[in-house]
């Protein structure tokens, strides 16, 4: 997984729980306590999953859903808005950003060999209802839902997201207007 995700997590944990908590998370995941993630690093998938699903909930005393919701909000509103500002410039609404996510994923990882970014397929069910198919072996559709809500918060739009299955979710943008 691209190191930018870990950099985001580091900032999130450091700002909310302190540097020592992050160092503890690093050590328990198997990294050195002064390990530095570079944004373009290709970090081990298993270590990443361990960090997100086991270590951070234990160290920070959060549930997994809380971790994903917090991350999704921080990724869009704090980290992404700053680092990936060019991507945000072209999007005026949540809908545009969500529709651009597949392109963003692909372009962010095209320089990383063996990268397997999550891919998204879109299908309009109606004028305001979009069915998104989340294609990834990681199975983090709940994280994508959190990111989508984060995007709604960024654009100050209400979204109604229904998870249909482990791969499909429906976003209703009618409340966003």
């Amino acid at each position: 997984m691209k190191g930018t995700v870990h950099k985001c997590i580091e900032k999130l944990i450091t700002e909310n729980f302190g540097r020592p908590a992050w160092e503890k998370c690093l050590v328990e995941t198997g990294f050195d306590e002064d390990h530095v993630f570079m944004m373009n690093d290709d970090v081990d998938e298993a270590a990443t999953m361990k960090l997100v699903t086991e270590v951070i909930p234990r160290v920070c005393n959060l549930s997994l859903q809380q971790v994903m919701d917090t991350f999704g909000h921080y990724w869009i509103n704090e980290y992404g808005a700053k680092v990936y500002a060019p991507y945000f410039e072209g999007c005026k609404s949540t809908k545009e950003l969500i529709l651009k996510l597949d392109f963003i994923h692909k372009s962010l990882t095209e320089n990383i060999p063996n990268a397997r970014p999550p891919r998204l397929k879109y299908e309009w069910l109606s004028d305001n209802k979009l069915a998104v198919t989340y294609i990834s072996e990681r199975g983090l559709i709940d994280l994508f839902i959190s990111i989508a809500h984060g995007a709604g918060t960024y654009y100050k739009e209400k979204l109604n997201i229904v998870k249909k299955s482990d791969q499909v979710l429906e976003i209703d943008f009618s409340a966003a207007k």
Partner: protein
Amino acid sequence: MKQFVFGLSGKISNSYIILVLLSIGAIVACLLVDSLQLLSNLIIVISSLSMLTAIISSYVVNRRVVVPIREIEVAIAKISKGEVVKIETTPGQDEISLIQVSLAYMIEGLQMKSVFASEIGRGNYDKAFEPLSEKDAIGAALVEMRNNLKKNAAEERKRNWSTAGMAQIGEILRHTNEGSQQLYDQLLTFIVKYLNANQGALFLLHEEQANRCLEMVSCYAYNRKKYLNKRIAAGEGLVGQTLLEKDTIYLTEVPEDYLTITSGLGNANPRCLLVVPLKVNDVVLGIIELASFHTLEKYQIEFVEKIAESTASTIASVKTNEITRTLLEETRRQTEHMRSVEEEMRQNMEELMATQENQLRLQEELKVNEAKMKVSLQELQAAKEQLERKEAELIAANEKSIAKSNKFREKMEAMDMELEGKVSQINMLKQANQELLKKLSQYKN
């Protein structure tokens, strides 16, 4: 006229009567005859006749009285010296003949007594002998003596029989392995044969927990050793009863079907049954049971009781020896264990002493090292102070370094973010270019 008796006194009396009558006749004749001459002739005749009569009477008396009396006197003198003589008897009824006859009877009687005494002396107590009369004191005494000697001989025979038997038993007990089956078999076989009994069994007491029972260890019947397994509980039957009562039982009326062994010639109930406890110090260790077709006498029963006592002593001795052997074995093992412990302790002592010496040596070295350590301690103290000073310097340097490192990291992160942003920008520009190119191509078309 009773004076005219038969016999010697009669003869002498008759002679004197004749002399007296002749004298009276002479006197009467003298009285009747006046002439001196006739008288003197008569006196001479009469005197002559008297002398002749006297001579004849003396001869007769000598032959008929003195000689026999002299013979009797000689015989009696010899008899008084213990000789057995023969005496001639003359027929007649006179005193001399009667004396001779009586003397002959007496001599004969003495001869018979002598022969009888000789026979008794040779041990022939069955020699027939009758006293001469009810008043024959010597004969009666001899008979009584014979009876007593016979009785004593019988007693002696019984005693010798018991003694010989005990000696043989002693040999068996001494020479046979103690506690072995061979001992029991030899013992029982000897007893049955020595008593001329027919069957015998030897039981030994087994005490298993609270149960006491008698187990047959040897059996002998009809000149053969038998092999039987038999157990009898305390109080069961005669044998079990003997165990409880601790006393000999002797029956002369044996119950029918009592015995379990019969001979090949047929079944016959024994005349008597003897059950004797093997007892020592009033403790019963076993039982001997004997059956016989002839009754047993008291001395035979006493003999079996003595054997039982000896056997019980042997069995008790066997048990004691066994216990002693076990204890000795235990003692030997403990002794060996003690020896090994002692050896171990000795080695430990040696090691301890070596350790002590080593310890003393080490203590000396320790003292030396202590002194050295004191010096080293002072040096260490100085070094410590120096290190503390250096540590402080290092901490300060480290903090500076951390601060520099943090600054560097922040700078690096900022550069990294900037780079990522630039990449994003480039990607966006790429996409915009592509879209422009797409539009241009559409426009060209």
